[in-house]
């Protein structure tokens, strides 16, 4: 099916997210505006105004009532999805690079940038799911990362751990109650920044994308690398598809060096890899700048990508996508019938 082009942003997209039902897409961009869109037809549902700087990150709670955003204006904000009302603003000394709700929506974490004498931190707040309630000012946990700044982070299943990806290519596991560093593992090439960390639906494993041109599937418990996907371009994002055993990788030549090369050499394509066999199965072209984020529909019926070119492209999968099976998978499926 033809992709739907969401051209509501004026600057590069930084993150796009589906809500758990998959009917709404939230997008944030460097143009200070948060947009919400109907995923099935690309109609804009509304915008959330208030941020004073480029936005880096967005997340929606599991019931689609609350929306958290963070950006370069050193604030993390909480919005009511339905009305667009700003519920809460938390101020920080540096910008917020990543926000994420826990699976049950009662915890919210934010990753703060390391800058001007401030170390990179991960802060956690307790959230009252009621939009009318007053949200607390005080964080329940603050993890200071002294070695290498965190770039991405998220809650594991049951919010037992906080998993963070670092600038130096390593992944850490923290106790989500005490904030104690349980262990740190060098997952990607040294000093190759981890650019994205997205969870499998059940949060027992996750995928990391890195500037070292690879994406890796890592287990939550032992931080053990299970699968590796090697591409020929720096990666900005990686997502795991439900229903089908694929992963979608997005990236491309750095925005800085793009001007000197053609679109062809930029490699601005979404790449589909088979999650288990680690083989590339397809590519989707369209963006004319690097892909900054790819998000998958929670029911696995489509995906969308936000690019440096300022567009969100929403794709709905066709039947052949669902029919595609490796011979081995087909045999297995028939044996289970």
């Amino acid at each position, binding site marked *: 099916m033809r992709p739907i082009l969401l051209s509501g942003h004026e600057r590069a997209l930084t993150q796009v997210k589906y809500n*758990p*039902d998959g009917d709404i897409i939230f997008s944030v961009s460097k143009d200070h505006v948060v947009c919400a869109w109907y995923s099935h037809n690309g109609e804009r549902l509304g915008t959330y105004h208030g941020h004073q700087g480029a936005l880096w990150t967005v997340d929606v709670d*599991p*019931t689609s009532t609350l929306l958290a955003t963070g950006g370069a204006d050193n604030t993390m904000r909480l919005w009511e999805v339905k009305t667009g009302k700003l519920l809460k603003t938390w101020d920080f000394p540096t910008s917020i690079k990543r926000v994420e709700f826990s*699976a*049950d*929506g009662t915890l919210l974490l934010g990753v703060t940038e390391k800058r001007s004498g401030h170390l990179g931190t991960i802060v956690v707040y307790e959230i009252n799911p009621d939009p009318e309630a007053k949200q607390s000012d005080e964080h329940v946990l603050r993890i200071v990362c002294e070695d290498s700044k965190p770039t991405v982070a998220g809650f594991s*299943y*049951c919010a037992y751990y906080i998993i963070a990806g670092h600038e130096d290519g390593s992944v850490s596991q923290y106790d989500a109650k005490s904030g104690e560093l349980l262990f740190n593992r060098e997952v990607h090439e040294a000093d190759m920044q981890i650019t994205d960390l997205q*969870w499998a*639906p*059940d*949060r*027992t*494993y996750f995928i990391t994308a890195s500037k070292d041109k690879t994406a890796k599937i890592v287990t939550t418990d032992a931080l053990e690398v*299970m699968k590796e996907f090697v591409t*020929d371009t720096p990666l900005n994002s990686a997502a795991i598809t*439900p229903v089908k*055993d694929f992963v979608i990788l997005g990236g491309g030549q750095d925005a800085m060096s793009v001007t000197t*090369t053609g679109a*062809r*050499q930029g490699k601005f394509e979404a790449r589909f890899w088979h999650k*288990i*066999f680690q083989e590339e199965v397809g590519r989707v072209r369209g963006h004319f700048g690097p892909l900054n984020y790819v998000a998958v529909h*929670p029911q696995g019926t489509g995906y969308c990508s936000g690019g440096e070119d300022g567009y969100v492209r929403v794709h709905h999968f066709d039947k052949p996508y669902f029919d595609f099976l*490796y*011979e*081995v*998978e087909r045999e*297995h499926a028939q044996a289970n019938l």
Partner: protein
Amino acid sequence: MAPSYENLPMEDDEFDENQVDFTDLEEQYQVRLDEGLDAFVVVDGLPVVPEDSKPKLVKFILRKLNSVGKVKDDGVHMPVGDSGKTEGYAFVEYTAPSEAVAAAKQLNLTALDKKHTMLVNKLTDIDRYGREGRVEEEYTPPTVPPFEQTEHLRSWLGDSEGRDQLVMFRAEKVGVFWNNKEDAPDPVVDRENWTESFVQWSPQGTFLTSIHAQGVQLWGGKQWTRQKRFAHPGVNLVDFSPSEKYFTTWSHRPLQVDENNPVPSLSLEEDGKNYIIWDLATGKPIRSFATLDVPTTMDIDGTPIKKKMQWPTFKWSADDKYVARLTQGQSISIYELPSMKLLDKSTVKIEGVMDFEWAPATPKRDGIKTYEQLFCYWTPELGSNPAKVGLMSIPSKEIVRTRNLFNVSDAKLHWQSEAAYVCVKVDRHSKSKKSLATNLEIFRVKEKGVPVEVVDSIKDTVINFAWEPKGNRFVLITTGEIPAAGAAVPPKTAVSFFAPEKLKGGAVGNFRHIRTADKKNSNAIYWSPKGRFVVIATLQSQQSFDLDFWDLSFEKPKDEAEKGDKELNANLQHMSTAEHYGVTDIEWDPSGRYVTTVASAFRHRMENGYHIYDFKGTLLREEGIEHFKQLIWRPRPPTLLSKEEQAEIRKNLRNYSKVFDEQDLAKKNTANKAVIEARQRLLAEWLEWRENMRMMLEEEGAVIELNGGKVLQDVDDEAEEVEEIVEEIIEESEEVIG
């Protein structure tokens, strides 16, 4: 309390220096004083003459000795023995030590007459090497190391699957691999920093050449051990003779060899030279040359035209017998091997000569029984004399054929691989010198009297030309515009195919145009080494990266065969078109089965890597490798099979190919099986792990996680289903009936 300085015992007073044995230290640190003996030489091997004939002898040898320097007055001391006769040797003092060095170098082993050979050595050397004790009194035979079986240098040809090898140079690593078609090449050897600038195969594939700052190394054998080393500091380029007997190294920097900068196996003779011609078997230089000063020509504005260096500068004849260098505008110097002496002690003067090319094979001309090598050369218009193309036979230096040409602005010489034809591509300008056109003058070397055929039907400028190897067809590329250097838009070109007419009795008729493919950007022609197939490509372009695969002997299904096809010795068919972004180099494998295209980091940094195609243009494999620099097929030596044996194989090709097909199939099946098994294993492992995780989550009571992150909302009040019917009135109109 530690003893203070005052309390130290003063026993040193009684120390006797003479008791210490210093001989070992003296020996070790002995300084060779300048004894003023450096200017002396010892001349030995002289005739023994009575005392009264001594002055005569001194005068005689002085004549020789003064040829390299000046002997001091009364500098010859020839002792006379008890018998009243000279002893057969003399001490000679030169005015300077350097002259003594020169004398030892140049006069040693000079024959005086039939019986006497003069030996000249430096006095200090005699002292150093010949002093008593330095030479053992008793003769001990040199130990001959036991014979060591060296590795077979051509073992790779015995591959049971008949595969070819290739060398790949990427980043700092050089590796030799077996070509495996679509599968990853099988590594044979892979080494870091094997070369410092590039790698090169010898022409028959025996050696792999690596280039270093100090010189060149040759590698080979099954273990890829070093076979030979050639010291040439600063070497830039290497060129082998066709049968790998000799090779030339070149450096843009003149060599510096003197006593302070000794270079192994090089002598003072090589000082200041740029080229060295080596004997590959001994590893010794045969002769060295300096770069010729090319008189810089000026263009109209008076700025000197930068000339590209011709490489190879020393061109080899097909059988390694001769090597020749051109002195542009004047002469060709032909050296005979293995002596490397000028043929007939003189260069071949050809006024105005611009270029020459040896026949790539030993020609067998009609009616010529004696041994000969041929080369072709051309001279431009000089005054009122027309431009000329000539064929010269060596060693007789006889001109076999010449042809006069007019209005020539440039000419290029193209030999066919078997030396059956040489095509001279002549760029001609009109009288106003404004437009260019190209003529082809084709010399039929093997026919009686060397007839020349002219193809002048080409209106445009020919930018490239190539003969079919071992065949008689050719391809050329023309362009209407004169290609501007560095233009962003590649010039439009047309590719034309030519073949000879079929005559009765299988003779080769006149060359005729078959077809032209126009509106192309192509500029490069790559024939399969076995002929018939040709790849036309666009290189060095920013926009176009096309590869066109053509077949010149396409076999049409019988019912489609047209009548006219019989006339020409060709049936052209375009097989396929491929594209390789950023392609810089193209090469056929030596068997003509595969074509590799390379985007080399030597030229640009975009999408470096290689593609492998089969002969019909099907992409078999592509791989992108950062800093990919070179991929070169290992050449094969000429076949050892006779013509009859080859024909026999061709006749039974079907039986052979059956065997290979079976092998391929078996290989593929096992490979497929392995892949499937690996996948089954991966899938089973994954599913098992997932099941464990699911059970773990169930134990933990993680409801949301098990539901894929979706919160199960309590459906307390029954979901109200609201059905809304919207009626939209699109149009209303009233009509009055009646």
